[in-house]
């Protein structure tokens, strides 16, 4: 089970990296980045996974007895943070992409920026 999780998240990571490397459209690159982020989040949680584990939430005295069966809560906490960071990155980059599109009339990452000269 843990292997499945890790492999699927690594495949997402690789597909995302492939997209970031090869796509020209900025929105596509951002989608690829998001896929990578999803992949890394899955990977982190998968690192904390325990075979046949249970949710790290206490519901009664029994679950306190079963602490050893719980999955690791720390990676989950980290992933909570990293999801929000991903949202922030996406929002900021999208705004920049819109501005980029307005300035360059193109969404291609290769849109030329030959603008030398007066620049204080």
């Amino acid at each position, binding site marked *: 089970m843990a292997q499945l999780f890790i492999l699927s998240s690594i495949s997402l990571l690789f597909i995302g990296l492939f997209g970031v490397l090869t796509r020209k459209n900025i929105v596509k690159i951002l989608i690829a980045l998001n896929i990578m982020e999803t992949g890394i989040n899955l990977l982190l949680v998968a690192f904390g996974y325990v075979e046949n584990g249970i949710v790290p939430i*206490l519901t009664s005295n029994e679950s306190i007895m079963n*602490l050893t069966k719980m999955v*690791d*809560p720390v990676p989950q906490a980290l992933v909570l943070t990293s999801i929000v960071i991903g949202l922030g990155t996406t929002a900021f980059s999208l*705004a920049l992409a819109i501005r980029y599109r307005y300035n360059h009339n193109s969404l291609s990452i290769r849109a030329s920026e030959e603008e030398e000269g007066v620049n204080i």
Partner: protein
Amino acid sequence: MRDERSLFINIVALLILSVIGFYIYKVSMDTGKGIKITDNITPQMRVADRFMNKNVIKEESKYVWGGTAENTSANIVTSVVVDYRLFDTTLEVIVLFVTILGFGFVIPKDKRKIIKPTTILNRWAPILMILMLMIGGYMFVNGHLSPGGGFPAGAIISTAVLIGVLAGRKTLSQKTLKIIEAVAGISIFSLGIASFVITGNFFQNFILNDRIGDLFSAGLIPIFYGLIAFKVAAELSNIYFEFYEEC
């Protein structure tokens, strides 16, 4: 977006990926001594063990359901996020603040006409909004007991604002959002400073002696979560306003 070098770059990218993949495979198959990345290390061998046993301060201490502990949140993830590693979470809030600030700063503000919403949406919007607010409120209030917490709660609350915007109802002004955002942010740190004044430590959970499993337990955690939820909601609502408000 076709490009003449497209194929070349694809091949290069695949090559890079395959080398990285092969390297990771090789590392995982390594037979040297020491801890490997494929080794199964249970949470009991990590720092998480102390978090689950809630005995970071006093070793060997045990706790029971309905009793007190150093941290009385039933949801251990929440206790890590909002107590043991609270500083990370506040920074995360700041990250969202900065990015949304940048978003509002960078996005081009051009006049755009708003399509008139349908009557049904306009009529039903308040009900939906209240529903969303309630769900969100429930989430952050119960963040220490059940899954959820401040971030999704904030997202859901912000959906209420989104519905309002889509339905053409003026709910909040951007100025109000800014104030909510700043007040929530400042109060998070004010709580930190308050705990510094009271206990001498920053961001210490200084409300003690409540019991695990109660609604009003876990000390400051629900308060922090509430602040975070409002802050996130205000920030996300800002995004919708940027897209859908006439400027």
